[in-house]
């Protein structure tokens, strides 16, 4: 065991409702691990317990070799955290945010000041050191929060939905920075509900729902394990008729949701051929992805 982060049988209830119902995690040094789950699945509570900000009702946690929550503070000395909601200090400039945050780790100001140019460069904010927080865009704020999480040169970085609310350009820049951190040997634990994000970044991931782990493994291995390799999505006027007469018979598994039929298949030719006699229908043939897996395991009903 590398001992970066280790959790066994972690549970937490609020008012008799079990929010985290037995989570097991073990992160190896240098890997990117994703926690995926719908809203309310227990992701943020899990992160809070791993950081020692909430005591679990049961289970054991070790953060960089320190027992949590007993010695969580010692563990957090080499941990960086990017919270779900930006909590930058609005009374300080960009640079001051980094300098002040470094003091919470007991790092001498001179040391943080020396790291400042590199942190600003990392956040692509080289020219914004003296800017006010209110003048930054959403993507800039998010990158500054990431730079702030690096102020103590952490071994392990927690990211709670790092790209929620960002535009595509800002998301890609964020991903590029996270990959850079992984190349430097940092370990990352991130939560997300963006499947493309998880597929791009994560070496391994766990899908959780209702506080339980439904599956854990490498993204492509998990897809191969749970989902047929190809998917044909069929939509258009009269899709119900076609679904009733052809989809079920020609697919290993088929589902109709709203106006789209999802056909999970090992070879798409029979399905595609059957569509020739239904000119009003359109289709998309694609490889199975993480979203298919996610929806299969967590269901399609809305979570709010």
């Amino acid at each position, binding site marked *: 065991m590398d001992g970066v982060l280790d959790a066994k049988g972690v549970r937490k209830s*609020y008012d008799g409702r079990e929010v985290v119902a037995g989570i097991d995690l073990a992160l190896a040094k240098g890997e990117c691990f994703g926690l995926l789950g719908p809203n309310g699945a227990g992701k943020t509570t899990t992160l809070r317990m791993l*950081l020692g*900000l*909430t*005591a679990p009702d049961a289970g054991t946690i070790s953060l960089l070799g320190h027992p949590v929550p007993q010695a969580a*503070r*010692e563990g*957090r*000395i080499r941990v960086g*955290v990017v*919270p779900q*909601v930006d*909590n*930058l*200090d*609005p*009374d*300080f400039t960009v640079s*001051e945010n980094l300098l*002040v*945050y470094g*003091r*919470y*780790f*007991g790092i001498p100001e001179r040391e943080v000041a020396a790291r400042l140019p590199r942190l600003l460069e990392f956040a692509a904010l080289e020219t914004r050191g003296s800017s006010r927080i209110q003048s930054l865009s959403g993507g800039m704020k998010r990158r500054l929060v990431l730079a*702030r999480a690096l102020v*103590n040169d952490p071994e392990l970085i927690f990211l709670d939905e790092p790209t929620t609310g960002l535009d595509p350009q800002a998301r890609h820049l964020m991903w590029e920075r996270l990959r850079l951190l992984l190349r430097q040997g940092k370990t990352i634990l991130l939560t997300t509900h963006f499947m493309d994000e998880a597929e791009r970044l994560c070496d391994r991931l766990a899908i959780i729902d209702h506080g339980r782990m439904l599956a854990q493994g490498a993204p492509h291995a998990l897809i191969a394990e749970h989902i047929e390799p190809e998917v044909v999505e069929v939509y258009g006027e009269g899709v119900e008729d076609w679904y009733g007469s052809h989809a079920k018979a020609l697919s290993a598994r088929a589902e109709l949701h709203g106006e789209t039929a999802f056909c999970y298949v090992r070879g798409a030719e029979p399905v595609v051929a059957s569509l020739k006699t239904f000119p009003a229908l359109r289709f998309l043939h694609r490889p199975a992805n993480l979203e298919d897996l996610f929806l299969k395991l967590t269901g399609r009903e809305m979570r709010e």
Partner: protein
Amino acid sequence: MIATVLSGRWVAVWRRNYLVWRKLAAASIAGNIIDPLFYLLGFGMGFATMIPEVEGVKYMAFLAGGTICYTTMLASSFEALYSGFARMHVQRTWEGIMNAPVSLEDVVLAEWVWAASKSLLSGTAILLVAIALGLSQSWTMVFIVPLAFLIGLSFAGMGLVMTAIAKSYDFFTYWFTLVLTPQMLLCGVFFPTSGLPAWVQAVASALPLTHAIAIGRPLFLGVWPESALLHAGVLAAYGLAGFWIALTLLRRRLLA
């Protein structure tokens, strides 16, 4: 038990608040001086024509001794309630700090001491104004500086309890109108409590501002206060009890 959960890093949190204050110091100090100055000059000059002397001293000097304590009470109360709530809830500053190796106990201790520091700054500012106005020249006034810090701890400790249970800023109006304003009127800021009905005096004698003024006014007027340690003890007890209750409530609110 608290010693095991505290670290020296609470100083970094105190310093964070100090740095923010320093940015706005000019406006803040001006406010600290101008507001009580208006009270002093307005009430003082107005009443002084009717009441030349109270308890053997000039009314303006009598009033100044009370105003210093009252201003000090308000300074830490505003900081612990409005500014503290902003940092805890609105800006989520505490959350960011607690992701670093800083405990909730560190953060709340820093807030408590910082709010008391605001009282010290504010008390010192108004003291200098009173000196400039020539209201007193007694050397015992220097003890008002540490007293201001103690008054700050007392009211900030209690104020943090309100912050711990507040859902929004509106809630704090109750604290000001039901707790602080009555103390301003009953505890002898503007007039001696000796003229009040016995039962009001009994109530007033339990209120912290009474004890603050019991030390602060004599010090300002150059008289060594009677039972100073007892009064200081009451102030400390209010502050410590408040701090302990606030911490218990905040653990429940933020670490559950």
